[in-house]
């Protein structure tokens, strides 16, 4: 996952695009090393000390990890559950919409 996300963020660094996480780790201190090692530069909401049972994932009824939503520039949900190349394609489609 991380290498793919890193390359997406890098490729679109000058575009109106953001990768945002909802992180479900219980222990934030332990996570700091991973962020450095994996060069995870994108911002994440923290789901809280309850981990995968935290309030954000509960509200969004997330039962599988990772779960991905893609939102357009107006904040509307446009894709759900897209991964890998399908995720890239979804983002490219929405970026193209802004330009047209």
């Amino acid at each position, binding site marked *: 996952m991380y290498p793919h996300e890193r390359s997406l963020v890098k490729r679109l660094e000058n575009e109106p695009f953001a990768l*945002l996480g909802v992180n479900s780790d219980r222990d934030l201190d332990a996570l700091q090393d991973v962020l450095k090692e994996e060069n995870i530069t994108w911002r*994440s*909401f923290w789901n809280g000390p309850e981990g995968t049972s935290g309030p954000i*994932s509960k509200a969004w009824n997330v039962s599988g990890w990772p779960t*991905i939503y*893609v*939102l357009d*520039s*107006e904040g509307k*949900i446009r894709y759900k559950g897209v991964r890998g190349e399908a995720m890239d394609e979804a983002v490219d489609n929405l970026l193209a919409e802004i330009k047209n």
Partner: protein
Amino acid sequence: MEMMRGPIPPRSLLVSFQTETTMRSGLLILLTSCALAAPVVAQDDTGSIEATELTAEEQVAELIDEYTEAQQAFYKKIRAAETDEDRDKIIESDAPDSTAVVAGLMKIASDHKGSGAAFTALNWIVQNAEEPAASASAIDTILADHIENAELKGLCSMLQRNMNTASSQALEKILAGSPHDEVRGQACYSLASQMNATANLARKLQNGSASEDYLNYYTQNLGEERMAELKKADVNALGEQAVKLYERVVSEFGDIENRRGTLGSSAERALFELKNLQIGMLAPEIEAGDLDGVSFKLSDYRGKVVVLDFWGNW
């Protein structure tokens, strides 16, 4: 003692050999030719008949144990394989065949119709039979003979995963016919979840967003005919049915406990997703701290395309 000829019978048939001197030849034929654990009757010197058969429960347990052992031995062999080629060979030649155990369990279930042993046997068939016909027939028998069983919850969760009409009809029968609120609640929740998953699958088929792997997986599980049906199905109508069923869970079965709290809270979450997290809907606001404790909002990113990724490094 008269020597036994032919194959060695299963352990279940050997228990009554203590009075072998009076064994009749007819019994020997039964012992050596019958693969199933039939009642074995031995006659003692006084001429009285003594039944020493295994109970139906024991017969069921033994058939299941033997198969489970064979399966574990098979997995052990697979894990020990050194090359992919060896592994494929083992899978091809040594995979345990469930046909015989399914036939044995079916026989016990019909000989002891309506009993606890029959229920255990039929449930095992539903969960393990490779033949869809065997599984379907076991489900029918459970619904006909065991609709009052308090342990039908497991079957509901099982049926939920199959997105075919037979499974939803079975769930509807349980919802209508079980005397236990716990079972009926689970049936209602399972029916709702199945409907929801069906709507999602149909949507993906219709908007072309399903990947090849995804398509292959579901085609293999549901069959091409069902997939063709779903391509034409009314996605919104399916979604509305799911909403109605979840609402019924909340109003009728809300307090019943499940693994994640109550059926009511699970249904509420599913309803929130159906009403607020569908494609085309404005994403609900998130306001929380980031990993450094600095608070921010999802709507801060309006104007940008956003990938929202629920992740964890666990």
